[in-house]
Each structure stands twice: as C-alpha cells, then as structure tokens.
C-alpha cells in the first residue's frame, strides 16, 4: 500500500491554479521533503492531504483511503501553517481534549497530553495558556499535538519557520528521533535541514511537480564530491581548480562560489554497496586531502554527492 497516491490532482482558487495535474506515488520510509518556492502549492497540497480543502479535480489516496475519509481520523496528523490553539484554555487541557477525540479515556487522555509535551520538552508549560508561550514554544506545542496517539503519518508544514537556530536544531533532532516510528512529510524552505532529515525530495513549482529526487541515490552514485574550503581568494580558487583537475579520476571541477567546489568524477558504471563501496581506495578523496595539506588549504567539508540545492536548481 502506497503512503500517498495523487492522480492528476488540481486545485483552483478562482482564476489561480494552485495545483496543476500533480500525479505522484510516495512510499513510506525515511521522511519525505516537499520543496518549492513561495506560492508553489505546497500548503495547498498539504491542505488537500489533511482534508482541509477539497481538490478541484483528480484523486488523492492516503494510506489507502481518500483524503478526508473518516478512516484516516487519528491515523494522519499535521502541523498546519498558522493554526493556533484556543488562547483561553491551558495547553494540557486542549491536548487532552484532542486525545479524547482520538479515543483516549479521560485519565489516559491527560497522560497522553503529558507524554507528547515531554517529547517536545514542554511538560513544565502544560498548565500555561498558548498566548503565554514564545513562538518557538508554540511551534513545539503544535508538534506535540501532531504526535498525539502516535499517528502513522505526520505532515509538517514549515516546522522550523520563525524558530531560532537552537530551537530549530532541537526540533530537527526531535523529528529525527521520532522518524524511527512515524512517517513524516516535511515542507520547508530550508534545504540544509531537509537534506539532514529526509531521503526523498519532491519539488513543486507553479503548482506542478517538477522533480522527485532521492538524496540517498544522489550520494550513492558517487559521481560528485562537494568540497568546501574555509576561506579562498580569487587566485586560490583558480589554483584549486587547476591542481585538482590534474587527477585522472576527476572529470570536471567548477567553483559553486568563492569557497565551494563541485567535483565530478570520471563516470564509473557501478553502484556502491555498504560492503563494497565504490572507489573503496578513496583515490580521489586521498588526492584532494594531499593537495589540501600540500597547499595549506583549510577545508570545512567534503560531501559525497551534490548539495540538495545544487541537485534541485542546477
């Protein structure tokens, strides 16, 4: 059974077409990223999946049931964008109420509210009202509500938007730890974040599905290396390209910016496996490190594969 199956999904808002014949089939596994510029239709797609709005045409199935079906109640959950709890009641009472709607009896509903609040590290704020929380805390509470009843699928619409780096990191760690048991679909503009959390990336643009990329495959094919140095001047950039181009295993090298280089290896028609990694002598990598040492260049990162933004936008 597919996680999500969309067929020719379209949504119009008046004369604006937010989604245009999106067809996609997603399988469960690692978290899935939904990427796209503002107005690409990400939130619209999430809203259709959650049953908040209905599609103008096309079909969508989640966990084998049509979106909005009563059989999905409690099985899918979401962190909707710009949704807030009632400011007049304590967080714990509202979360317990949500839990009771999912079938928890009174005592267990309160315990479930506490459990999800502990997950996001906000148990001590349980009796506070939503308005007394900071933006970051509010976001964590919204994630806590999404985890009530351990749903099978959780849709997170820009979970770290507006969060400070420390809270964003905490949230990423939380999602990463929960992803062992829960399937997440995450919409975000933060590609670095998605690269760390997700495997599959769906790219929407102007309401159309333009790309579907597997980060794992991108790394597995061993075709590219991304080298980031600490600081480079223009002269050094030219020198790095010249020096590294000399290796016979390197097909092409180009600077992505003043500090970052995309290195394309000579094509090898072989897939790497964990027990037999491709280029297991790390010939190219060794050469790069030798040159770094020789020229006293400080490196910041050597990444196997392209950055997500290079994959999506190159």
């Amino acid at each position: 059974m597919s996680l999500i199956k969309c067929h020719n999904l379209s949504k119009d808002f008046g004369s604006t077409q937010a989604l245009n014949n999106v067809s996609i089939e997603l399988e469960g596994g690692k978290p899935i990223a939904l990427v796209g510029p503002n107005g690409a239709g990400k939130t619209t797609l999430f809203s259709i999946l959650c049953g908040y709005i209905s599609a103008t045409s096309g079909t969508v199935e989640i966990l084998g049931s049509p979106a909005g079906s009563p059989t999905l109640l409690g099985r899918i959950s979401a962190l909707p964008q710009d949704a807030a709890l009632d400011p007049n009641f304590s967080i714990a009472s509202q979360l317990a109420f949500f839990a009771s709607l999912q079938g928890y009896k009174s005592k267990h509903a309160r315990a479930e509210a506490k459990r999800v609040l502990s997950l996001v590290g906000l148990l001590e704020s349980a009796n506070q009202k939503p308005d007394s929380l900071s933006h970051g805390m509010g976001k964590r509470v919204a994630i806590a509500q999404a985890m009530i009843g351990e749903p099978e699928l959780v849709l997170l619409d820009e979970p770290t938007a507006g969060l400070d780096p420390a809270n964003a990191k905490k949230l990423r760690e939380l999602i990463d730890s929960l992803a062992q048991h829960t399937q997440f679909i995450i919409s975000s503009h933060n590609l670095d974040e998605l690269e760390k959390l997700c495997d599959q990336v769906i790219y929407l643009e102007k309401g159309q599905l333009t790309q579907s990329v597997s980060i794992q495959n991108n790394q597995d094919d061993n075709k590219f290396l991304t080298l980031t140095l600490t600081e480079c001047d223009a002269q050094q950039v030219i020198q790095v390209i010249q020096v590294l181009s000399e290796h016979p295993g390197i097909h092409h090298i180009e600077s992505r910016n003043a500090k970052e280089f995309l290195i394309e290896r000579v094509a090898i028609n072989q897939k790497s496996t964990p027990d037999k990694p491709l280029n297991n002598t790390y010939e190219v990598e060794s050469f790069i490190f030798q040159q770094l040492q020789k020229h006293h260049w400080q490196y910041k990162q050597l990444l196997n594969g392209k950055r997500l933004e290079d994959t999506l936008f190159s």
Partner: protein
Amino acid sequence: MQAASTGPSQMSNSVTIALFELQKLFNNKRGILSIVAFSLVWGIILLYPIRGASDYLLSPDFKAFIASFFGEGAVNQLFQWQVAELAVFWCLGLYLFPLFSIFIAADQFASDRSRGTFRFLTLRASRNSIFFGRFIGQMAIQLFLVILAVSATVLLAISRDSSLIGAAIFDGVLVTLNLFIVLLPFTALMAILSLHASTARQATVQAIVFWALTSIAMAAINFYAPQLAMLEWTLPGAQLSSMINTQGMDSLSYSAIPLLQALVLLFIGRLYMIRIAL
C-alpha cells in the same frame, strides 16, 4: 502508555465536543463572567418586573389596560397562569432568550475557524461530529441558563406563596421545555452564520441584518403577495408572538414549527460544514 483504541464513533465525539463546550463555560474566566453577567441581568428582571408581577396580573385594572392595548383575547391566557411570576417570565423569556442566543451561540465556529484551531480538530473528529457537537454544546449551555433563570423565578414565586410549589415546578418544567425548543432554530441559524463569519461579532451583526432584512421582506410579501404570507413560518421566532398568549401544555402545540426549522437549518449547516474550506 495505553494506545487509543479503535476510533470513537461520530456520536461519541459529538458528545465529547459538547462536554468540552460546557467545560469551557465552567472552567474558564470568560465563561464564568458570562454566567455572572447573565445572573445579574436576570436578577434585575426578577427583582423588578417579575416580583411585582403578581400584583399587576391580579389587578382587574391592569387586565383591562392590557386588553385595551393588545385587544380582547389577545393576551387572555396570560391571566390564566397559576403562577404570576412565571407568566411574566414567559413573556420576557420568550423574546429575551432568543436574543441571548444570538450572542451566546455566535461563536460556535467563527473564532476557531479564523484561528485555525479547526484544523487540529478535523484531524481527529469528523466535520459532522464537530458541527453537531458544538450545536449540542451550545444548546446544553442555553438549557443550563434557562434552568437557572426558571429556578430563580420558581423560588421567587414560592417565597411569595409556598402553596404554589407544585404549580410553579410543573409550569417551570413546561416553560423550560418550551424555551429549549424555541431556541433550537436560533442556535442552528447561528451555527450557520458562525461558520460563515470570521468573528463572533460579525456573526451577530449578520444575524441582526438577517432578521431586519427578512422582516422587511415579509412585510413586503404580506402587502404585495399575501398568498405567500405563510413563508413567514420559515423564519426562526415566527411563532413567538402567538406563543405569548398560551400557557401550560398549550404552548407545546407550537413546537412543530421550531423543531422543523431547526431540522432544516441543521441540514443546511451540516452541508455547509462539510464543504467549507478550513
């Protein structure tokens, strides 16, 4: 941790939502303040017009005055009530409670929808459960307020004449039941307006505009197309002026009108709820 069992039924979730509405009233500063405000208003009404009611209603002069004002037979039943306090309460409550209803039930959905809280709810409860749960909750709140006001009136009557206890309780139950039925279509209409409006105030304004426009429309229909005058019965509260001059079990004879209106309005509201974008 005990996992949730199989999902609760729609009815069960409606009850959970309705109970949470009651909890909102009693466990919240705003809710308690509204009960206090309601009690104060009814306290004043009880202390002045209702407490003095027995004297007025038993006075032949007053009866003649009322008859000359409204017409002989128009209010004759008013003087048949055994408990004069409840007679006055009936006249006032029949109009005041629907008016309160417009304010009390105005926020059935408006705030939650504009705030996005609905999105959290619809992940766990069907739209039907939410719609009917909120409606039942609002009716339960209004029933509580009606019982509060009727009980105070009954106590007032008994404090004047303890022999009235049996009649006061019987009439009090009938008044409560009648008012509950009267409030059904008002609450159902407010459910629809509250779904449409983005704030409770907007829903209230829309309700006032609705009644103002429909009153003008009905007046025009009565004048230009009197054969369509029966359309008036489709409006919530159309039967109120006729109900004034009823008492006891006779008042229930008008129940079919609000019950049918409520059914139609709930049907429309449910359709709207299912189709609305959240």
